[in-house]
């Protein structure tokens, strides 16, 4: 069984009869001592029946080793602390339960510090369609603190094949509102604000100001130009994504003075239309929107390499993925 740091804290407050066992290596115990817990220290293989004759909570560094061990040994009364010592100490710092993020906090590139950075970050997604839905889902789940969703469309029956935040009973409702409702159930840590409007030169200042990252998930080049221009002036990273049938493109513009969309496609005349005009398999925006979300958190956390100064080209027919260097 799994328990979160918050639940363990409650058990301790209730003086519940239990054993708390720290199975970490000596160097881990020394570097990251458990805040406020008197734990029995032992190795997993040496856990005696005496220790486990009452409710037992096992703690390792990230909650992975103990979870596997409990599952393998099939022990009912032994609990795994989700996220381990890392999540426990994070909870003790500010009563914020980060255990839901334990599988990404275990990555040294993210860790507790990175997770707190994500929780303090603001991402604005322009367009809540094929790209915007998966991007919003993953960013919300990852614990981005504030998501702004901008879209002036309503849910249409033809959106449902590729925009999994929407259900049949919400046809006709504003996309940004429906998505915000769905996402608030997905992760209460992420505050989602709906803006039921299209982005324009007139409103972009109000709508995009304060964003750490803007995610371009629109299906019109004029809206992309508005974002590109604003983000260039304000030096905000713009994560571009575009689709054509089975192909997708991703890049990061304006990061640390990097190229802009207008540098790469100054004319942007395309005979191709939107996904509604040309058709698209639902999975393709799922793939491209997920890559955009990944690049967004990498920008927020300063993880490199990233797609700044590069154009990623993905082909969903033969599954090739390649990068063009944008030496502009």
């Amino acid at each position, binding site marked *: 069984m799994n328990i979160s740091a918050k639940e363990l804290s409650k058990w301790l407050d209730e003086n519940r009869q239990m054993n708390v066992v720290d199975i970490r290596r000596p160097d881990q115990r020394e570097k990251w001592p458990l805040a406020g817990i008197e734990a029995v220290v032992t190795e997993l293989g040496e856990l005696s029946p005496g220790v486990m004759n009452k409710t037992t909570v096992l703690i390792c560094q990230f909650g992975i080793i103990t979870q596997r061990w409990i599952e393998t040994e099939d022990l009912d009364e032994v609990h795994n602390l989700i996220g381990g010592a890392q999540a426990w100490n994070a909870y003790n710092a500010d009563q914020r339960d980060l255990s839901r993020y334990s599988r990404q906090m275990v990555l040294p590139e993210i860790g507790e510090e990175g997770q707190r950075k994500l929780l303090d970050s603001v991402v604005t997604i322009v367009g809540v369609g094929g790209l915007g839905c998966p991007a919003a889902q993953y960013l919300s789940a990852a614990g981005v603190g504030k998501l702004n969703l901008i879209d002036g469309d309503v849910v249409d029956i033809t959106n449902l094949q590729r925009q999994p935040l929407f259900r049949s009973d919400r046809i006709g409702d504003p996309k940004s509102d429906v998505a915000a409702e769905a996402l608030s159930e997905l992760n209460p840590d992420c505050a989602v604000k709906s803006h039921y409007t299209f982005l324009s030169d007139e409103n972009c200042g109000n709508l995009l100001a304060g964003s750490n990252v803007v995610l371009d998930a629109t299906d019109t080049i004029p809206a992309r130009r508005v974002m590109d221009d604003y983000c260039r002036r304000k030096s905000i990273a713009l994560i571009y994504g575009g689709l054509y049938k089975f*192909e997708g493109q991703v890049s990061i513009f304006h990061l640390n003075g990097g190229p802009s969309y207008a540098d790469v496609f100054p004319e942007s005349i395309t005979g191709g239309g939107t996904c509604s005009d040309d058709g698209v398999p639902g999975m393709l925006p799922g793939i491209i929107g997920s890559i955009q979300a990944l690049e967004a958190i990498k920008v927020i956390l300063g993880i490199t390499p990233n797609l700044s100064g590069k154009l990623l080209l993905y082909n969903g027919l033969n599954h090739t993925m390649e990068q*063009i260097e944008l030496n502009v």
Partner: protein
Amino acid sequence: MTIQVTVRCFSHVREALGKDVLNLELEDAADSATVENKIRELAGEDLNGIEVKVAVNRKYAQKPVILKDGDEVALIPPVQGG
């Protein structure tokens, strides 16, 4: 003297030509703009009005680049679906 280049076609270009890759024989010292023009000729009306960006050996070419034997030229239109 002639040179051989490989042309990689993306989105509308791939569709207009019906293939991902083709090989072109060009006059020595031909440039990347020549490749784009030849591909537009082959594609006919299908590429009318479509901007195409060119990359040579996976580097974006803002201006026409003189090609060498064995170079790879990619033709990439902007896409707008989302």
